């Protein structure tokens, strides 16, 4: 791959955000005009505990280069305990992906409150940088999903 081609690499990043905290945090980042790369696309879910590992693997299979899950801070879940379950599930899932040799920077969980527009924006910038440095996801992609 040439250097130019590398520079052109625009990762595909899926961000699952819980409706109550993180989605609102992303809204705040927007209304505060706190820019982050357009590579990030947000999917709204009611709670971080709604995110099934299947969704994450599906995203990678379809060619996502990074998946980030944002939820309310532990202790602040709108549904009291959803993010605690999400935390265990994601810890185990990420550990398994790491175990089978997928670069562990491709997945991330971050707790972002509705007041943390700045954190949302910085988190997304950092995450995009990380994914750019990792390059294209080739270890989890399902090639049949490409044309």
């Amino acid at each position, binding site marked *: 791959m040439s250097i130019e081609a590398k520079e052109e690499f625009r990762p*595909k990043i*899926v961000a699952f955000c819980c*409706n109550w905290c993180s*989605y*609102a945090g*992303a*809204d705040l*980042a*927007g*209304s505060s*005009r*706190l*820019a*982050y790369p*357009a590579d990030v*696309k*947000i*999917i*709204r*879910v*009611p*709670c971080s*505990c*709604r*995110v*099934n*590992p*299947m*969704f994450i693997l*599906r*995203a990678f299979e*379809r*060619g*996502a280069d990074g998946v980030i899950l944002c939820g309310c801070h532990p*202790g*602040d879940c*709108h*549904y*009291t*305990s*959803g993010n605690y*379950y999400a935390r265990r*599930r994601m810890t185990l899932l990420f550990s398994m992906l790491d175990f089978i040799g997928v670069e562990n920077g491709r997945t991330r969980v971050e707790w972002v409150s509705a007041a943390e527009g700045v954190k949302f*924006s910085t988190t997304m910038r950092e995450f995009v940088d990380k994914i750019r440095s990792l390059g294209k996801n080739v270890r989890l992609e399902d090639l049949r*999903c490409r044309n």
Partner: protein
Amino acid sequence: MQRIGVFVCHCGTNIAATVDVKKVVEMALAEPGVVHAEDYQYMCSEVGQEKIQNAIREKNLGGVVVCSCSPRMHETTFRNAAQKAGLNPYMVEIANIREHCSWIHKDVKEATEKAVILMRAAVAKVNLNTPLKAGESRVTKRALVIGGGIAGIQTALDIAEAGYPVDIVEKTPSIGGRMSQLDKTFPTLDCSSCILTPKMVDASAHPNITLYTYSEVEKVSGFVGDFTVDIRKKARSVDMSKCTGCGVCQEKCPSKKIPSEFNRGLSNRTAIYTPFAQAIPNVPVIDRENCIKFKTGKCGVCSKVCQAGAIDYNQKDEIITEKYGAIVVATGFDMIKLDKYDEYAYSQSKDVITSLELERIMNAAGPTSGHLERLSDGKAPKEIVFIQCVGSRCADDRGKSYCSKICCMYTAKHAMLIRDKYPDVNVTVFYIDVRTPGKNFDEFYRRAVEEYGVNYIKGQVGKVIPQPNGKLLVQGADLIDNKQILKEADMVVLAAAIEPNPDVRKIATMLTASIDTNNFLTEAHAKLRPVESPTAGIFLSGVCQGPKDIPETVSQAGAAAVKAIGLLAKDKLLTNPCTAHSDELLSNGCSQCAHVCPYGAITYEERQVNDHGIREVRRIAVVNDALCQGCGACTVTCPSGAMDLQGFSNRQIQAEVDAICL
């Protein structure tokens, strides 16, 4: 496939300056299923909404995507607009191209590309949307309050005053709770009974309040607005309608050596008894375990002396079944057991007592008629040591990790009262920190130190050793002067930690209300919904939710009442249609989903199913729509995918993923 309309909002220039809205419209028209697309300056305006409504009618749209600001802003607006045009409101999805796109990106090409992708994801989702309907459930206009202490009484009075019938279930023979055991109350030092008793009378006399004393909640079923509760009225052995409360039975009862629960075992009571003089109802109960008549069949003295003929040895427990719209838990607290703190010699010396025991000793109606004396020899103490945080703020598993909150203040109160009444008595308090947040609290504590000369020592006590001369040797540390302290005391008072009433776990299980590791009931939200349980229709009053003093308890009791009244004032409840649903053919009945449900919304039933010709009875998970709040925890726990969430289904979310990753 739905017939979808896409509406792209300019939001003035908020969106249109960065996103090429015409391009989004053009790309939308190329999406499968999209039969209409247009842009407009302000979609949320009257005119914008009309455009959507007209398109729904004219193009017979089955789904609508609005590319605009955040759904948190105008989702409801657009849903209502769609509904007015005859479309199910849940057939509307929002692509957030303002907060998540135009406002954060500068480059028009980049922002437009992203807006197109967000539009595609919304179109992909709406393709899989199904019409949803908010359900309705009725509200029984009656409340139940579990626990008849100050919290329960206050909640019941407030609900009753609002015009709703309310029942109080109290386990002991009288309402009044812990507060009735207290002598004086901080920081004003007014007499506890004097302020509590009128409220007890109000509660018993209120036409909207029914008291079930000596009763316990046995079973709870149903859900918010429609609970069915079985209450066990334990056999009192005294006919409440006949008893005049004259008290002769208690005077004559020959079984007199039973430790009084009310006086914390510091005095005795009879087998037929009312816990205290101001008890409400003023009707005694027979403690059948200690009654000679029940133990041997002989005696019957109470029956002979009762002129009203109220004694009924054949009375049986009675189960009352009642329906309620709201339930308030006000089960209160108790002191922890001190068996793990034997270094303080509580079990070895009668002169080592808890603060609650001291309350009884200081009380004019208590075991010593209010005289401060050593329980071992009746002598007046000259040197009293108070030890704070016994079992509170404890790092190991002997005690509780939390601060019991009330001990600093009641100890200052005790110290002050003792110094006031017995100026020759020296009072020393060993403390870790003195915590006095609260109106007039710090002033109160300072008065104890400055005006009453109470000796506060920052440091913990390691050991209390009973001496042969009857004194108590207190070994402690002074952390400020950094020295060891040995002090001979006549009495040691332990500020034992408080813990939720041990019955609360059983009650929480019946109510499917969640409870933390310390057995405190959990709030729906720690900051914003502090008096509600995550389980709809269950409210929290008093210390069952966390340590509190009396003013806080009363405020919270009032707040819980308001929440309950708010619920009872409704005739019907609209339920959130984005709830979980279980596919009966896929459900394993394995109970995993129920374990993670914070609302107790999932139950299981044995149901006859027809699985492609196989007819059998299976254990199937069933979601109660009135309880489910739609978090989706169950959907991920379910390995077979039987549990899915309406409005955020697996396939809908995957369609969004696919559209984004295309």
